[in-house]
């Protein structure tokens, strides 16, 4: 009953605030579209598994800055186990290159390097004047995979997280600053009822936003979608629940809307760095581990698995349970944080 009254009020307020609604629903679409239009590739160190081939080829490849790993049998699992960017198999007839293709720009670079190295060695040994035929396969995606397809899922998760965080945080903050929170606490409402109502009230908007963003990304921006769209929505909803509870928790430590905005560079921006948009493999171990405390890291990984690799919810259960744990911890902290206003 009380929760119902709180939820109804939150929704009424949101519906009357057209600009905030527009920000919540349209801004992610706008930014995603822009990202889609401007994104370009990047470089990093390449690891290539190799089967067969002579020393000369190996030398040339290594001189091109490619790290070589000798492999016994050719199967796709080796790529995952040895964390390879690609697998090159030299046979009598020619060469087979399987690209991991999680990062299409990287994959294309590797393909070019291998092809050049092959023609270089061919020319000097002149055993095969027609040039070695390079057959290329892709573990994930295909030759048309764009970088945006890979980081797209991460961006979807990020924008859902960011906008829900901001709007829910400022929502509770407004109550704190205007004194209405104090007034609500002067009624017999329980602290958990307030937190639950906030989660529900803003949760409804988060559901709508998530659905719009996901459908827009897949059907309008034509983002790669190997898994089930419902799984993508489930992951994003869990992510927005974390953002919602984190947003209202951090609003406790802000004295004004501006101070809430100050949390963006502190809390939101670092999460982008570790979400997988930028390669983290080259970073120091402790820095990589820093990503493990960030909710977006798990959300992005789950989204990438489902949207790009076509895995199901079962495959990302680990990520999902960590996200649920984040949400639970933030919710409990929220209930405790309201103690600052009223002990009961």
């Amino acid at each position: 009953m009380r929760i119902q009254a709180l939820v109804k009020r939150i929704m009424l307020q949101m519906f009357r605030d057209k600009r905030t609604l527009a920000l919540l629903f349209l801004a992610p679409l706008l930014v995603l579209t822009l990202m889609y239009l401007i994104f370009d590739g990047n470089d990093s160190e390449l690891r290539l598994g190799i089967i067969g081939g002579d020393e000369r080829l190996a030398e040339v490849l290594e001189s091109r800055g490619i790290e070589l790993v000798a492999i016994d049998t050719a199967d796709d699992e080796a790529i995952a186990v040895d964390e390879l960017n690609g697998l090159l198999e030299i046979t009598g007839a020619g060469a087979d290159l399987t690209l991991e293709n999680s990062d299409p720009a990287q994959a294309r670079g590797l393909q070019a390097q291998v092809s050049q190295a092959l023609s270089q060695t061919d020319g000097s040994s002149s055993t095969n004047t027609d040039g070695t035929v390079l057959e290329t396969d892709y573990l994930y995606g295909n030759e048309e995979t764009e970088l945006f397809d890979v980081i797209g899922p991460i961006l979807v998760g990020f924008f859902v997280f960011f906008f829900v965080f901001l709007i829910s945080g400022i929502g509770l903050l407004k109550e704190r600053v205007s004194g209405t929170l104090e007034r609500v606490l002067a009624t017999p409402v329980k602290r958990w009822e307030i937190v639950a109502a906030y989660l529900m009230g803003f949760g409804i908007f988060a559901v709508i936003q998530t659905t719009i963003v996901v459908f827009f990304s897949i059907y309008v921006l034509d983002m790669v979608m190997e898994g089930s769209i419902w799984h993508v929505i489930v992951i994003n909803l869990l992510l927005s629940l974390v953002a919602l509870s984190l947003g209202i928790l951090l609003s406790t430590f802000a004295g004004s809307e501006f101070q809430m905005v100050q949390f963006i560079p502190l809390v939101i921006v670092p999460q982008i760095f570790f979400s997988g948009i930028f390669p983290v493999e080259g970073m120091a171990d402790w820095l990589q581990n820093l990503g493990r405390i960030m909710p977006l890291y798990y959300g992005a990984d789950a989204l990438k698995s489902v949207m790009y690799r076509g895995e199901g919810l079962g495959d990302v259960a680990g990520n999902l349970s960590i996200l649920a744990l984040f949400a639970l911890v933030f919710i409990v902290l929220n209930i405790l944080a309201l103690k600052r206003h009223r002990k009961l």
Partner: protein
Amino acid sequence: MDHVIRIEGLSKKYGRQQVLTDINLSVGQGQIFGFIGPSGSGKTTLVKMIVGIDSPDSGMVTVMDRQVPNLGLLQDIGYMAQSDALYPELTGKENLVFFASLFGLKKAFLKERIEYVADLVQLQEAMDKKVSAYSGGMKRRLSLAIALVHDPQLLILDEPTVGIDPELRQSVWHELLDLMGQGKTIVLTTHVMDEAAKCEVIALVRDGGILATGSPDELKRKFGASDLEGVFLAAGRDAK
């Protein structure tokens, strides 16, 4: 007389600043009790502790024989804060319905109470307007209406008549006296001396302490002053 509020040895610090020092007092059933003092003297902190939305460092507050804070007790208290604390995006009626629902008012009774309090503060015509379009005085009246909506036994009003025109102020006072006649207890804070004169009992608050308590006439006699302003000055001198 029964004591509705009892305060014993109440002290509070915010950081290093001592806001209240060893406050002891009691408020009787059916009284209009006024805390009078300059801004920053600790009046607001004191009334918040009676409601239970701020907690003392030491000492105890008992309201209607229940120790504060107490959730059930909040059902019997109507609190109006110094800031209007309204939702500007909502209409006056939506604000009232929201708070009335938090107090668990049932539909028929809720409707009846909302009509009654809207009439009381003369806001019937503005009920369907958004609060963002209200004037300062209208907001203050709506805020008062919210404090009354659940028919509480104890009213705690922090500066209730600031920003209200004289005519309305008079009707608010008229209403307060009426409520007192129904056996309700009213605690208010003010820094306007002539308003304090209308209270049955007043407590002079300064620098987080109570200088004197009593009826306005008693205090005037005691300090040999012709008005409350004189009482305040004399009491201040005595305290030093």
